């Protein structure tokens, strides 16, 4: 059995010390559960429509989902706030060490969890190890009915059968913004771009930005509302903070 001394302790950081790069703040109190983020994410990231049969098997594909909870027993139930759940882009991710093909790797430059589609062999180990259950698997080659293939986003790979996928924090937009900023010889400004889910949210429940910059909106909101991480006891060092006042 591995003891504590066997682990490379120097690489393990405490959640207080860890600072990521890109992060989100989600205010559950203002989330109305309208699912606009789910739709926008599907359109932005070429997510497949699985159809009723596969959905019946529980093979729906979403990179973001709205979780709902309630208090009490039927018929005396009271809805509590909805909870948008997407990849938490953990700094110490449980999905990463289990991949036998190194298809889910940590980006040192962007501090994101990457899913490299051309490396993925479809063992689904990462999805089984994800405590947030945010990964989805392409069980088939899902075809879109005409004329929907015309609105595929050319900046995002169209995944094929046997490949795992998950939220990327709209890395194509990150690259686009960084490329534009570099061509103009400046840094990416806070709020210059945002993810598809944050952009479409009518209640502004989702805020995206740099968490390593204390001046950014997402850092300030996280500080102001004392945003909490999901399952911090697992030491995943997630980059998404949630606030639920009640």
């Amino acid at each position, binding site marked *: 059995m591995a003891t504590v001394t066997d682990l490379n302790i120097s690489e393990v950081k405490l959640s207080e010390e860890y600072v990521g790069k890109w992060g989100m703040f989600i205010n559950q109190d203002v989330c109305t559960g309208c699912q606009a983020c789910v739709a926008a994410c599907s359109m932005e990231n070429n997510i497949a429509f699985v159809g009723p049969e596969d959905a019946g098997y529980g093979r729906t594909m979403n990179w973001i989902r709205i979780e709902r909870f309630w208090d009490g027993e039927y018929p005396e139930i009271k809805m509590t706030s909805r909870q948008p759940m997407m990849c938490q882009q953990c700094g110490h991710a449980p999905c990463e060490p289990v991949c036998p093909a190194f298809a889910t790797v940590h*980006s040192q*430059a*962007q501090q994101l969890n990457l899913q490299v589609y*051309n490396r993925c062999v479809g063992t689904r180990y990462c999805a089984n190890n994800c405590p947030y259950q945010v990964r989805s698997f392409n069980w088939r080659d899902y075809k879109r009915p005409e004329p929907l293939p015309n609105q595929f986003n050319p900046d995002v*790979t*169209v995944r094929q059968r046997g490949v795992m996928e998950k939220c990327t924090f709209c890395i*194509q937009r990150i*690259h686009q913004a960084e490329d534009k900023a*570099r061509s103009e010889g400046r840094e990416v400004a806070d709020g210059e771009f945002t993810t598809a889910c944050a952009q479409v949210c009518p209640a502004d429940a989702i805020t995206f930005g740099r968490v390593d910059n204390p001046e950014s909106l997402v850092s300030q909101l996280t500080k102001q509302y004392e945003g909490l991480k999901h399952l911090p006891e697992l030491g995943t060092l997630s980059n998404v903070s949630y606030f639920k006042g009640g």
Partner: protein
Amino acid sequence: MIKRLFDWLKQPLGLIAVGIVFLAVFSVAVYGLSLTQKAPDQPIQFPHNKHVGFGIQCLYCHPGASKGPNAGLPSQAKCWACHNQIARTQTSELLAPLKNAVESGTPIQWVPVAQVPDFVQFNHRAHIAAGKNCEDCHGDMTKVTVAENPQVFNMGFCLDCHVKTAGEDKVLLNKLADCGTCHY
């Protein structure tokens, strides 16, 4: 049954049959491989060597390379800007597709030659801004007519240059050798 088949294959006629089958499979495979190494057929046998020889810059016809992800293929309007002043355009047989395209207004269907797979996100602008020249990847265009690939655009080719460019700079290496730089 199987034993009889093996016995038949061991006699001279059987060996010849095995040899013929092997040769057929081998030659089909070689032909298939040779097809992948050939430049695709273009609607016009465009002579890159002549145009570059006249001193036309790459970016004149492919201006997207310095602005965004795609270098772009020129429309017939761009060709016509020069070619309508050249008398031979009207009579030349090779340029008939261009004349037809301009007169009918249908675009010329150029076939892209330098392509990367769908799971690779390539951006020309970043490479031009980093001081790369077109010929570093696309070869010397003064030597070819229809565009050809001087090398296979695979990950080894890209990463080789990325690692070399980064050199000792660990921050730059993190960025240039990151999977998420090209694959997302």
